């Protein structure tokens, strides 16, 4: 995780487009400027960033399901529950499942667990629209290789 850059998914462990699921992992950094404010003397992964982490995992699933032709943008978060503290250095597993694929929007159920224990979950809505420009789409494909969603060969094939 690079909190300051909003790069919150380290790696895609598995994806199943037929089942509409994805599993990712991420490790909370041991040091970050975020922890200077949240909180002094008690560094804690902000809940909003956990929600963003679930959104990003869901987003990778949706961007893959749309064959990198469309980009999901966060629209709504429902029933977000932050069930346990997440500390620097902890390794997180993020799971997401598309629960509804609408026209121009999609919904996912997402969760994060740590050492097998559920730490947060939410129902997330996205607007799913065509990439606003080709550079953005190309950058997302490059990042997809970095997180292991897309192979280098697939990137080269366009």
């Amino acid at each position, binding site marked *: 995780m690079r909190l300051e850059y909003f790069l919150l998914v380290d790696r895609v462990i598995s994806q199943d487009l037929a089942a509409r699921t994805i599993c990712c992992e991420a490790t909370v950094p041991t040091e970050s400027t975020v922890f200077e404010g949240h909180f002094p003397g008690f560094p804690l992964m902000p809940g909003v960033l956990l929600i963003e982490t679930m959104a990003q995992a869901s987003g990778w699933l949706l961007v893959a399901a749309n064959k990198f032709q469309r980009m999901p943008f966060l629209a*709504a978060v429902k029933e977000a529950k932050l069930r346990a503290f997440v500390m620097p250095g902890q390794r997180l597993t993020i799971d997401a499942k598309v629960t*509804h694929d*609408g*026209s121009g929007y999609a919904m996912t159920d997402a969760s994060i667990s740590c050492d097998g224990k559920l730490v947060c979950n939410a129902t997330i809505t996205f607007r799913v629209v065509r990439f606003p420009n080709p550079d953005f789409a190309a950058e997302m494909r490059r990042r997809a290789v970095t997180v292991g969603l897309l192979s280098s060969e697939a990137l080269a094939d366009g």
Partner: protein
Amino acid sequence: MSSTFDTIANIITETCDIPRDTITPESHAINDLGIDSLDFLDIAFAIDKAFGIKMPLEQWTQEVNDGKATTDQYFVLKNLSARIDELVAAKSA
């Protein structure tokens, strides 16, 4: 069995906290009921689920943006009900 309009009106009431008795077949979802695009996503989701369809919101929006249709054709509730009946019939055919 409730009509398509009744089902939609009930969904709007539950989703947007709009009193049921203020929703009529002549109501325009946007102009009269003040439903914004984000709330309409929730309504679309509930309608998709209730009727087992995929309401083609993107296509409708595109037609409106291109001047090929008016918002009345899709967002006045009696017209929306008719569109949904068509989608349900097309799915059953």
